């Protein structure tokens, strides 16, 4: 039985699948990072992942185009990011409660649309093929690493590129610095002439956009079907990864790889002859989440003005 886990074939397959599974978590967590660093906490991203998954799936079925699928998934995500920011910025609403509301709203909406568009027949539509992999010439032939890193789909490559890019954006570009200013010291930022509300709204929309893209990734690149439990807590894992990564892109990447490994192991364990009930293997990512929050994500400081509404003083 041990040979099953030590063979090169198993290892290669496992590592490649870990990267593929970690990708949507990185995408969603990077989006939430931008939102939270501007001072808005959007706990609704789990829901946005669902609705993004559905929108991406339905669009790709109807148009046959992956690009449209991802784009529509992202646009729907923007819409819900916008709802969150309106509640937070315009109405000074309670952000934890509003986030839960968006989660449940999206949950209902995607279930409703799924049923009314595709019906309840057992012959559910499937996407003919998941997003194709693009082997990078030369590099993809290296044993183990080649298959893991250089024979993936386009979204995986873009995500790996996005991590240093977003890091650079927050360190060197004035827009990134403005987002941090608004999230850390909104009053000072306001006095310095930054428009706190506008920056927060745009950040929340960007976060929604990435959550929608991350959702669309699930049916388009991983499963080729849409089910009403497709997300299996991806948005919540992204939030854990964000806190674990201390609101920094490289930290997020590291945390997401742990979840990628748990998810990859989940599927692989089911195909081995270990005498484990399937419920236990399905539990794995949630247990990993629990262990991670208990041991690594305590307290978590985060942006100083996180989830606090900004009200201009009236004096």
């Amino acid at each position, binding site marked *: 039985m041990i040979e099953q886990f030590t063979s090169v074939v198993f290892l290669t397959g496992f590592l490649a699948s870990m990267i593929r599974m970690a990708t949507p978590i990185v995408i969603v967590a990077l989006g939430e990072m931008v939102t939270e660093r501007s001072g808005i906490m959007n*706990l609704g991203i789990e829901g946005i992942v669902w609705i993004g998954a559905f929108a991406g799936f339905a669009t790709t079925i109807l148009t046959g185009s992956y690009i449209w699928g991802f784009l529509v998934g992202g646009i729907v995500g923007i819409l819900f990011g916008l709802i969150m920011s309106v509640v937070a910025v315009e109405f000074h609403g309670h952000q934890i409660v509003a986030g839960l509301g*968006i989660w*449940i*709203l999206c949950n*209902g909406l995607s279930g*409703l649309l799924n*049923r009314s568009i595709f019906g309840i027949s057992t012959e559910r539509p499937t996407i003919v093929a998941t997003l194709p992999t693009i082997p990078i010439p030369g590099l993809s032939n290296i044993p183990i690493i080649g298959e893991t890193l250089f024979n993936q789909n386009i979204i995986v490559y873009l995500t790996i590129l996005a991590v240093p890019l977003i890091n650079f954006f927050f360190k060197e570009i004035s827009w990134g610095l403005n987002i941090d200013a608004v999230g850390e010291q909104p009053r000072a930022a306001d006095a310095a002439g930054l428009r706190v509300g506008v920056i927060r709204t745009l950040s929340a929309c960007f976060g929604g956009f990435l959550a929608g893209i991350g959702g669309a990734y699930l049916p388009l690149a991983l499963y080729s079907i849409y089910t009403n439990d497709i997300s299996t807590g991806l948005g919540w894992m992204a939030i854990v990864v964000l806190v674990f990564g201390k609101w920094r892109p490289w930290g997020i990447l590291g945390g997401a790889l742990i979840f990628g490994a748990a998810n990859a192991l989940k599927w692989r364990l089911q195909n081995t002859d270990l005498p484990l*009930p399937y*419920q236990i293997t399905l539990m794995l990512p949630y247990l990993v989440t629990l262990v991670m929050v208990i041991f690594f994500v305590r307290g978590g400081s985060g942006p100083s003005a996180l989830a606090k509404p900004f009200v201009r003083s009236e004096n």
Partner: protein
Amino acid sequence: MIERIQNLLHSDQMGKWVRPFFTQVLIVLLAFVLGGFVILGIGADPIAAYAALIKSAFGNVNSIAETLVKACPLLLAGLAITLAFRAEFWNIGAEGQLYMGGVLAAVVGIYFTGLPPAVHIPLALIAGVLGGAIAGFIPVILKAKLRVNEVITTLMLNYIIILFTSYLDQGPMSDPIIKAGISRRLLETSWIPIMIKGTRFHWGIPLALLITILIAFLLSKTMLGFQIRAVGENARAARVAGVSINKTIIWTMILSGALAGLAGGIEISGVQHRLIERFSPGYGFLAIAVALVGRLSPIGVIFSSVLFAALIAGADTMQRVAGVPIPVVYLIEGLVIIFASIRSIRIRSPFRRKVTA
């Protein structure tokens, strides 16, 4: 006459009860109106859908009884959320706590043999309370001792406990004949008796009402209730006044989990009589909306639990008669929660902007 109405509108009673009541009614109406537009969007008739909903939830004695049967777990879980949210402890785990209560109640109901009903029923319910309390204790002790975020832990426990229930139902507790994610039947000595013959209206429902009154008393008249409110409204001031925040949230969550667990226990021993995989249609999640619409007040929760119970009781009919899929329930629930998050609506006027010096 007009003068009297005006006087009433400005009286203290108005500010305390009437205005908040109408705000909540407005929130719910608004959610239903928006939900109606979505129903229109998928090509169904919202008026027909809502008419079917009301008719099947309140049409006759049996349907009213069915609605109240569903209101019972919502009321208890809604109280669970109310207590936790009052102390600003974001317990999203009522669903898992409810399942844990159901599991332990089922264990007592199935495996404890030879007991008279007078012992067996309370024992099953106490087991439910215990299961919920344990499931509620884990996240709060992690929060109090290690400052672990409770939203994540309560949520992950939901997933884990629901999968655990499914494992029990397909493995050790599965019915040897049916074998379809369902446990053996509970012994009849552990069933909560029916109160209204010919319906499923059981004695657990008045019990839940009694508990609601006790919780209302606890919140407004006891030391713990005062501490819960103090911690929730202003933690720093509470600490200065000598209230131990950790102690308060720990007791709050033990109680909160216990209430959700009792909801699960009553559901199993009063209604289902078996431990069924996914036996709750999301009572623990709906309870969040129930608590918020009830303005986190036990008496308010009574009304809102009936409202949401009607929504799930009528959802099946709405799907069958008006072609509106069941998930519309969650759509409306989500809208209600989002509206409830906006405590004070203050639309910024461009004319009132002041330049800070």
